[in-house]
């Protein structure tokens, strides 16, 4: 049973475009899913550098999937879905 890995992009672009407020996930997730989810802030995921890609920042990577225009709610929903699908 591998844990779901949540990587919040803490690169400059993502941070300015809203990841600053995703930092709350670093507290929310371990409290809510102590055994099933790992969360961390990571350096620029390199998704922002292509032309105008900042439009869809901030990015969060959940396992191998990229969540664009990420919000706390969006990330939580995605995790819930993964857990329901019996991904644990």
């Amino acid at each position: 049973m591998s844990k779901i890995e949540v990587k919040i992009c803490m690169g400059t672009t993502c941070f300015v475009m809203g990841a600053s407020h995703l930092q709350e996930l670093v507290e929310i997730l371990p409290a809510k899913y102590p055994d099933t989810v790992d969360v961390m802030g990571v350096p620029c995921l390199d998704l922002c550098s292509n032309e105008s890609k900042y439009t869809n920042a901030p990015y969060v990577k959940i396992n191998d999937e990229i969540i664009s225009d990420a919000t706390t709610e969006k990330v939580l929903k995605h995790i819930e879905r993964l857990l329901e699908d019996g991904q644990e």
Partner: protein
Amino acid sequence: MDKNNQAQHLKREILVRTIEAFLSDNYPENTRLIAYDMRPQGCEVPYRCCIHKERDVIQHRIIANLGLSMEEIDERKLLSDYAKKALERTEPEKDVLTVLETACQACVPSRMFVTDLCQGCVARPCVESCKFGAISIQNGRSVIDGSKCKNCTKCMQVCPYHAIVKIVVPCEDACPVGAITKDEGGHATIDFDKCITCGKCVAACPFGAIHEKSQIIDILKKMQEGKKVIAMIAPSIAGQLPCSIYQLHTALLKSGFSEVVEVAQGADITATNEAKEFKERMEKGDKFMTTSCCAGYNNLIEQHLPEIKPFVSSTKTPLYYTAELVKKDNPEAITVFLSPCVAKRRECLDNPNIDYLLSYEEMGALFIAKKIEVSTLDPTPFKVEASREGRNFGLLGGVAKSVEVADAGQTEIKPHIINGLNKQSIRELRGYAKKGECEMGNLVEVMCCEGGCIGGNCCVNSVKTASKAITEFTKDCKPLKEPPTK
């Protein structure tokens, strides 16, 4: 309201694009094209009624980014003409805010409203509670007569079904000094004689319809002309981005500034002077003194609260001292204050030593446009390193604390903090002025923004994480004064 909402995202995206356009080889034309790039033919219409309105709103935001007022815009002109016009001015425009009428929803006027939850009950406490006789029962339902209603909310409080609600206009509701009214079309207008430029309406409007008039084009232009442009960074900047303040220093140099100076330096002077003044005042028999470093508060004093003047410290702001030092050493240079808030815009306009203001939000957009990744940069130290207390000025209570440290135990100090200006805290201050005393303390720190400067409306980071980052950074900095040895 959560600062990190879609309106904010949109605002920042348009800022990045405006900067990119400026840096491109065809600034006027590329500025004109922004709205079409963002909403190309046939694209989804995320927020407004149709694609044309979407583009219109985007264009009006660009006009504010160009530093122009919506109020003076001639719709027949092209945006590229306005982009050129922005290059012509030699001084930033007055009146720091502008209402984007196209973006403003003309929210329904603030009033009390009876919802369908009304049961037309037997007790009818609403009728009873209204002192103005504005409520009657018609067809078994409570009805409010708008001409008599004074919005006192009594009826709302007594209804056991919570059937009565208060409809608020977000901008009007947020304004602590009643500076926003509606024009004939229901759109918000700001009375600049009353406005203290606190920026609360900017953050409150869910449509992002109130916008600062940016000076980013003016600053970029000076850089492009090869002028020496010096950044003066407010203490609160330390917790804004995921990097150290020394890396941020490097990032600012990379983005076009020639030199970076900490305003925390000036904060050290403010703290020292204020402590001295406080001691003198208390010895003279004064009951309290308020701080004087917050621009929003200073505007409030001038425009709405002159009676408190005798109790306000005459010490200047950290920015004042810093700008004085910088201009003295570099009379030719262009000085830019990097600011957490809208309120400082007025202070910068009024102070001849400060040429322009760049908000943290705009700084972030500049880094994005220039593809500067702050966390990968090498640190650059400052010529003069400020003290721990000076660097803590942006935290709530940081100013009062610095005065205490500077005073070094000579005077009995009991700080009282006003955490954000709103209708209630203004009433509180008015009371202290009237009585000539404040029962809560003798050193009153007044912060216009909730949370102190790190809660400023142009901040990028949340108050909580920013505060943690600054505390972590400053704990090992040199103190302003060694603690007294007893």
